[in-house]
């Protein structure tokens, strides 16, 4: 499928920090993520939390159009993780900026229930922390991106990054040491 080839190529481009590659990736994936999230939202009953992981999966199936193979799924999961991180961080930065009155219009949250300040702060802090982590080992950043920003399970993270589950667990543990230590010594 042409779309999945695009994703793989786009991911590589993003990895090379090619200009505009991330935007392109977001453009490709984001509409589906959004539409599917919408239907999940519509179907859900009051009080239930939105299952964002399910949304990611459904988006994948939607794009793959029934021709899913492992490579595509891997790429997609990684891409989705990257996109979600991008979206979440973007969104959080906008909120924070709005609070400080920098002039950016915040997105309205009328239907959304209370978003606490802590959440935005946490997202930004985590984003910064992961970038720091990538200086030690890029794999750490990728693993935590999958785990946190996309909410993937150990197994899915292993798939997405082509590692064994055991390796994922080890990397998670390793990353947690750094992250928590960073929090202790006074994060941003």
């Amino acid at each position, binding site marked *: 499928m042409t779309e999945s080839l695009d994703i793989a190529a786009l991911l590589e481009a993003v990895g090379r920090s090619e200009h505009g590659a991330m935007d392109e990736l977001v453009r490709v994936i984001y509409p589906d993520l*959004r*539409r599917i*999230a*919408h*239907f999940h*939202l*519509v*179907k*859900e*009953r009051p009080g*239930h939390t*939105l299952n*964002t992981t399910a*949304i990611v999966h459904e988006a994948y*199936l*939607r794009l793959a*159009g*029934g021709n*899913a193979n492992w490579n595509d799924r891997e790429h997609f999961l990684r891409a989705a993780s990257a996109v979600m991180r991008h*979206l*979440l961080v973007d*969104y*959080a930065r906008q909120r924070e900026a709005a609070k400080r009155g920098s002039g950016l219009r915040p*997105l*309205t*949250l009328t*239907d*959304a*229930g209370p*978003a606490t300040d*802590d*959440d*935005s702060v*946490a*997202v930004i*802090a*985590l984003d*910064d922390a992961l970038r*720091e*982590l990538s*200086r*030690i*080992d890029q794999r750490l950043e990728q693993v935590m991106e999958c785990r*946190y*920003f996309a*909410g993937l399970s150990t197994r899915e993270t292993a798939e997405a990054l082509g590692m064994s589950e055991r390796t994922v667990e*080890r990397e998670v*543990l*390793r990353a*947690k*040491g*750094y992250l*928590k*230590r*960073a*929090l*202790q*010594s006074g*994060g*941003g």
Partner: protein
Amino acid sequence: MAADSPTTGCGGALDRIYTGALERRGGERRRYLDEQCRADEPLRREVEALLDAAEREGDPFAEQIQAAREHLFRSLLASDAKAEEDLSGQRFQNWRIERRLARGGLATVYLAQRDDGEFVQQAAFKVLRRGLDTEDVVARFRAERQILSSLEHPSIARFLDGGALPDGRPYLVLEYVDGRPITDHCSERGLELRDRLRLLIRVLRALHHAHSHLVVHRDVKPSNVLVSAEGEVKLLDFGIAKLLEPGPSPTGALHTRTGVALLTPGYGSPEQHARATVTTGSDIYQAGLLLYELLTGEFPFDGDPSAVAFQVPPPSQRLRGTALYRQVRGDLDAITLRAAHADPAQRYTSADEMRLDLEHFLAGRPVQAQPDRFSYRLRKLAGRNPWLMPLLAVVVLGTIAYVVTLTVYSARLERERQLAAAAQQFMVELFRSPDPFAPADPARGRDIRVVDTLELGQRRVREELGAQPELRAALLASISDVYASLDQHAEAIDLREEALALETELHGPRSAQVASSLRALGYQYAATGDMERADVLLERQLEIARSSRGVSPADLAVARIASGLHEERRGNLDRSHELLLQGVATLRAEPASHPNELVEALIVLEQHRSFADVPIDFDPLREAEQVARRVFGADSLQAALVQVRLASSLTNRGEYDASEQHFLAAIPVLEARLGPNHGSTLDALNNLGYLYHGQGDLAGAERLHGELLARKITKYGEQHSAVADSYQNFGSAITHQGRYDESLPLHRKAYETFKVVLNEDNYVIAVPLLSIAYVQLRRGELAEAEAAAREALARLQATPAARHLQGVAQCLVGVSLERRGQAAEGGALIASSHALIGSASLPEPYPELCRVPVEG
């Protein structure tokens, strides 16, 4: 992140050492750190801080990030809503759009006013959303206009008009309904049950009207059933789902060709989810779900669509403890279950049928949905089934029976735990439908319900689970166990054999599952008296347990105990003792894992000690009591059953007060939980009678046994060992009051019935003979007495089970000889009988009669 992040320092070395240390533990880790860090204190401290942070519990980010993800989606979706088109203020054909009302999955709805100057009319203006208007969708939209416009019913939101927007997107104009979803309407106004049903009746009339015009709604859910302030019911979105025909998709949900999920998951009928043909039946299913929600205020499946493939639970279940429970239980349960039956063939065939049933209910008339009552055939298990205990060997023979009862209850619970969630639902609903174990006075009345349920369960298992043999096997085994607990051993055996065949195929002939089924089957055959087959089966299960790999020590222990108990039944005392000791030794370390087997084994070991003088260096009875109390809890049915066993043992030991205490505590529990005529209840009463006898309250014993005899004849008919047993006990109570003329025919009856009902080599047949011999002695019929005693002796010698009984028989021969003038021979027999009797306590008057030496 702070500028002085530890990673920017000696980053490379720090990470290497930290990573290395993570993979080591304890001493090894310390040594590694010593090596790597040498004298560099700050470095080591930093590494240790990282290790500590990594390994400490708690994830500071996870929750917040998850919350952030969710908020992101919601807010983006909300902004979507604002960014969407808004047609307010525009005019199309004869309609003026006033404002947007709602945004649905496919279409947006606006409030519109008729604008042709002719009359005022409010309407709902529905237009497909941008991007979702592919050609075929539009074509269908138009095609269905005809059908929709033909539906005219007071409870259906009328189709008024249709057309296309300038950009080609179709729109529909429908009667505007200002109302609340039916569920909200009912709860906000606190409507009572009957009023809610009346509302549903109107919905059903609407559905029927549509069905007769060949329109299937396909999306009957609360938000599509509105009720106005005046109480008018209107069904919305009629046939809209039908406009967009489902097609296959990778996720299996119903998708349109545009790839968008349509059906509200959780509300669809099973066949809709399975993408099978959708007919009017699926509307009825959804009406059933609606009924459920109206009755309980809750959705039956809690949003889990995978549960839809199985049966809706009876609504009364959710209402336990509330005032509504009684009203809903029974007829309304039946109506709901029939409407929302997983199998379309079992539902109401039309909305009208369902409506009529509701109207019957409201009028107090019988409801069609209740299942037929089967006539309950109490099969006479001629020649089978000793659940009983003859007077003297009270405890020994009851062994197998009690184990079956005890094992059955816990096995059933255990199995239910092991089954997958779906299967669990199946079984749990089966046993929770109208109070199957609630006692009623005639055994018939209560048991029929359960038997009905079991028959239904069997049918369903066979019909519905063809593709899931493992599940089927487990369920058949469970149902078998319940039959067993109802004394219906023939059915239990049939089902268990079937389960065994499946399990053999699935897991192999030497698997743990097969061993377990062999064990259960062995118990069943033993319970019906087929000892030969029971032998084979129990032998095989032990052999499998011994030599198969993957069998846990606990499983082996259970296998040993099962064999041991069976050997006991056969009278092979040594083998039994050895096996039971081995089993106990293993299981007592973890009593909660197989408490029934442990307790049973302990009790039988106790009998060996008291009857057969086998030395044991611990107190099995006390241990059994402790296990039962601790594992089952003082008030449980299991504890009551065990208490009865203990009480019987205590009776045999002569500890009458303690025994009576246990009986009086346990019997009410049995009567309440199992019913007054359940085999186990009757056995307990029987043993209580024996207690009275032992205490010397012969009149009390006589009363109790007489009553028991009557109950048993009613339950089993005359040809049954339980009845024979009662004749014997009843007779004994009268014998010991000296009314020999009355008692002799009773003992005779017992003997004759045992002969018919038991195998020829079963020593139990000898027991009434002893009584007959005694009575005849007392009446001076010496020749007859001697003959009877000799026959008894012969029977008892063939099986070494109860030596003390042998002793009694021998002494009776001796006494009759003496009285006929053969003093020497008689005396010798009497004297040598003492060795056989040993220290077993005999009831009066045998000790005196047999001149058993009093312990000095």
